[in-house]
């Protein structure tokens, strides 16, 4: 158990190699309950790898990871219960209805009162009228909302988002970040990666820059006050490139 009960993610020296490529070279990260972290980085910086490790889809080569008090080396199945993941793909089945998709995931997580839970979740995401419609016929924005419902259905301690904006138009993206902001104000802990500097900045509480497999900059947003984050970003990522 973590001494600090508020800590949701504690990562110490996380490193990951693929064959001879070192994708992550030692990541230290502490995410507390209620935080909204935004991790920026150029393509190939290791963002997807980081999310992959946090989501248990990848195993770190080195380092320790604890999520909500569970060590990743101990009970990986129990640990997965604590995580909700949203990627640029929806993880949904196009030929199942919205309701069927959610209840399928609900069964995988062994959720009680599934019917009420699913109906409630669909209503919350404004999809109640579309419950029995196949997901293939949904607009991208509706699919995105259903994706959020899918990721939150089991009440995860942390929501991990891996470049969720990819493929959304400006309008849908704005709406999506609005939803994320709402979730955060409901005390949902969030960690998100992105390469797009124009989005999400208003709502987050923490910012970090991932470049060349390292976190080269990290700060609370309040510390940043007034400074131009874009300049900081280019300063650090250009430095890493050299």
């Amino acid at each position, binding site marked *: 158990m973590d001494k600090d009960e508020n800590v949701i993610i504690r990562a110490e020296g996380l490193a990951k190699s693929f064959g001879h*490529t070192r994708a992550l070279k030692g990541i230290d990260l502490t995410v507390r309950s209620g935080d909204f972290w935004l991790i920026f980085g150029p393509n190939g910086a290791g963002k997807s790898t980081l999310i992959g490790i946090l989501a248990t889809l990848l195993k770190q080569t080195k380092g320790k990871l604890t999520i909500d008090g569970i060590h990743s080396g101990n009970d990986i199945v129990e640990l997965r219960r604590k995580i909700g993941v949203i990627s640029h793909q929806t993880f949904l089945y196009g030929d199942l209805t919205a309701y069927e998709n959610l209840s399928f995931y609900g069964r995988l997580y062994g959720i009680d009162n599934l019917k009420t839970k699913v109906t409630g979740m669909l209503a919350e995401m404004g999809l109640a009228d579309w419950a029995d419609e196949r997901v293939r016929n949904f607009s991208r924005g509706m699919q995105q909302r259903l994706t959020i419902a899918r990721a939150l259905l089991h009440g995860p301690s942390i929501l991990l988002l891996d470049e969720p904006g990819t493929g959304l138009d400006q309008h849908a993206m704005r709406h999506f970040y609005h939803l994320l902001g709402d979730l955060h104000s409901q005390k949902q802990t969030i960690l998100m990666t992105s390469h797009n500097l124009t989005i999400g900045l208003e709502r987050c509480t923490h910012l970090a820059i991932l470049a060349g497999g390292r976190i080269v900059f990290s700060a609370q947003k309040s510390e940043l006050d007034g400074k131009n984050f874009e300049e900081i970003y280019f300063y650090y990522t250009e430095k890493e490139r050299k």
Partner: protein
Amino acid sequence: MKKMDIAVFVLGILTFLAISLSLYMAFIYTPLEKTMGAVQKIFYFHLPLAWIGFLAFFIVFLGGVLYLITGSIKWDNLAYSSAEIGVVFSTLVLITGSIWAKRAWNTWWTWDPRLTTMLILWMIYVGYIMMRNAVDNIERRAKISAVIGIAGFVDVPIVFMAIRWWRTMHPLLITSKGMGLAPSMLTALFVSLASFTLLYVYLLLIRVRLGTAMNIAEEIKIRLSDKL
């Protein structure tokens, strides 16, 4: 590294001598078989080749298991090296078996259980090598290879049993009793078995070193491109 070089060199010399000795024993030391004639000499190579084939595929299996347990790429290297050698040797088994069959039963192919099992194995491991060329990610390739290597080898005894029952009428020919081998023939066979095993170890060692060198070259390439 230097010491290793010397060891490989010495092993190479030993293998050369051993193979020369088995050639001598097969062609000069042993008498000509009465009914089969000169073709019977194939027997001193066919059997050791088949043994190396099975041994090589067993090493593929072992390398796969060890890779999955440890995650160390060197086991994948070992397994793949052994698979390549195994395919070469089993190809030779099929060819020598065919020549034998032509002389003995006047047909290029018989559905003899051993030969047919070897054919199926050959197909499994040719597929294994084809698959490796289709996957670029080193780790993924190693994992898939390991699983195919394990499933393929686990299949061997079942394939053999199935084919043997399927062809119950067929006489079991290559048993030492049935052939009534002369003592000198048996000696030649064992010498040949031993020297081919040596050859396998030698080839495996060289192939593994080559694989390691390729991995290191790959690593250097990536390091350099990181710098650029």
